[in-house]
């Protein structure tokens, strides 16, 4: 019960998170399970309100799951009674989060040096301020903010959005994390700067072995960042498809993944205008307060089979190697055991 699979550095098992009370109670994340191997990138994609940020916060330990477990390095993070596990501090340092908004996540009254040296000194990663300065300089170089003397004593408002986000990454790195949860970390950054930021984050994976949970609504960014990793598509609180990035992008199985990929505009006029659309039966995203029976996608799904999809909720089943889909029809067509 208290042991995770040895395969993964971080693992979510049957995570559930509810918000609100009584009649207003909603299940934002409903039975989500996945694991990330050391050095791997897993992308969570989905539309707003699908539970991807809530999942990210539970992985980071910022939110306690209503039920289900998070395993870090094979150990359960929370005790069966819901208290912090014995290695909670190691876990919290080992898993760091980068938030979406670089304007809100840095203290405006602290210099960059102060922002970065505080966690170093607090967690005793350095012995004194001299060592702190050395380490801050090193970190700024790692995230590509050089020459460092241009940044050390600046305040966040003196930096651009892209530079601030680099400071956020540097701050996450102060405590030598093994896992970084990046929650829409590049969505507020301008196009010309975004690729530089993504490439820098990819370098951290190569050079420092950082493992990523990368949360985004942008499929193009997911494809670019997680090409060698895997993508999990979420819909209304659950994972509907989980596969390697090239498989998911070029040959999606779940009708929702298909609809998303067909709908996404591309920065290539001929390509984007010739895309085949997937016609959905309804445009309405169900409210978490009134979820459809059976498969949550069935009121919109072009594959809908009455008597099956509106009755039985599909499980995330393996179809082929390292590939999972939660759809009765897609699983049947892929020859999965039912």
């Amino acid at each position, binding site marked *: 019960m208290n042991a995770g699979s040895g395969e993964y550095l971080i693992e979510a098992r049957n995570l559930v998170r509810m918000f609100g009370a009584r009649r207003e109670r909603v299940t934002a994340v409903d039975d989500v399970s996945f694991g990330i191997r050391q050095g791997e990138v897993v992308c969570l994609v989905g*539309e707003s309100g699908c539970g991807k940020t809530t999942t990210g916060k539970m992985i980071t330990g910022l939110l306690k799951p209503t039920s289900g477990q998070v395993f870090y390095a094979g150990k359960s993070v929370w005790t069966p009674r819901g208290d912090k596990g014995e290695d909670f501090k190691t876990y919290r340092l080992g898993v760091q989060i980068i938030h979406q908004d670089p304007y809100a996540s840095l203290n405006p009254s602290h210099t960059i040096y102060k922002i970065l040296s505080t966690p170093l000194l607090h967690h005793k990663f350095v012995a004194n301020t001299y060592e702190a300065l050395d380490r801050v300089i090193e970190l700024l170089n790692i995230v590509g903010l050089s020459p460092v003397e241009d940044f050390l004593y600046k305040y966040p408002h003196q930096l*651009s959005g892209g530079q601030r986000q680099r400071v956020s990454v540097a701050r996450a790195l102060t405590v030598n994390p093994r896992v970084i949860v990046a929650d829409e970390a590049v969505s507020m950054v*301008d196009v010309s*700067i975004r690729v530089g*930021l*993504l490439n820098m984050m990819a370098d951290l994976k190569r050079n420092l072995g950082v493992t990523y949970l990368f949360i985004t609504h942008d499929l*193009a960014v997911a*494809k670019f960042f997680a090409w060698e990793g895997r993508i999990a598509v979420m819909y209304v609180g659950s994972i509907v498809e989980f596969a390697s990035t090239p498989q998911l992008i070029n040959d999606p199985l779940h009708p929702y993944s298909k609809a998303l990929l067909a709908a996404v505009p*591309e920065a290539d*006029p001929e390509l984007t205008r010739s895309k085949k659309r997937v016609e959905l039966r309804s445009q309405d995203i169900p409210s978490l307060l009134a979820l459809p029976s059976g498969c949550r996608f069935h009121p919109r799904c072009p594959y809908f089979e009455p008597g099956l999809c509106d009755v039985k909720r599909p499980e995330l089943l393996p179809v082929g190697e390292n590939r999972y889909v939660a759809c009765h029809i897609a699983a049947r067509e892929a020859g999965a055991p039912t």
Partner: protein
Amino acid sequence: MEKQSSVPLTVEDLWVEYQIERGVVKAVRGVSLSLVKGESLALIGESGCGKTTLGVALIRLLVQAARITRGEITYWRDNKGIDVLSLKERELRRFRWRECAMVFQSALNAFNPVLRIWDQILDTSKAHGGMSTSQVRERAMQLLEYVQLDPKRVIDAYPHELSGGMRQRVLLAMSLLLDPQVLILDEPTTALDILTQRTIIDLLRRLKEEIGFAMLFISHDLATAAELADRVATMYAGSIVELGPVDDIFYRPAHPYTLGLIRAVPTVTGEFEALVSIPGAPPDLVDPPPGCKFHPRCPYVTEQCRVEEPQLKTHYSETHSVACFNVQRVQQDTLDLQERYAKYAGGKAS
């Protein structure tokens, strides 16, 4: 003054400045363009490049601190030119919305949260138009239906009861209320989810084709431009640096900045492609660099670029213009894009 009736709006050498504590922000610097009936022009560029300022200046809705220091905006109706910059407050009100409507970026903030949709529609029509209440009601119901909403459900709803995509559609319906010739859309699909974005894009395309107004849409998103634009204008540091038909801009861009943007945006379909970021950051518009404003970030920079600012000149064809001294060298680096285009063209022919 005479002009073809197919060009409802022309802008000549427009300059807009903001006064701030530090000095003067030159937000729009010498922009000239014309909007054509039944055609959409996409204004692309990064935040702070002046694209929203330009859009707002067209309907003279600039904030107090901003000033139009030079230029002409002419609105054409029945072959007669109206000088927008000399309109008085009352005429201006008529011009806005009846002739030229603007849909703003944030669909939630554009509404008054305590008024029902119907009251907002009625207010709009009272402020700008001359229809009776029952006419407005009828027209509003038609338009809501046209934008694929359930009119009965929506018209008595409060803004917070509608989803982002529904609000965006209500705004579009409202912008059509007084039958304008020109529609300006500021980031019409930003902050919407993929499937919602798709319905708005399809709706906008239908509007353009069926109603045939001139559309200017402002976007930082190249993909939206690729979807919707007939022509694209790239804006950098307050100026248009390249302007041309959508295929020219995407498959044989001639300005290093346009090329840089294209190289920085991944496509979803297909194999992995390496991406290249544009080094540096956009310039400070209070104290912009001398010469070409892009030169500090440009891989093609020469001595000339550092001292002289290139002007927009035609290139390839009458319809494609670019402001760069090194067009030839830029074009040599777009062969892969041209090849990709040739493939599409070949696919069409066969």
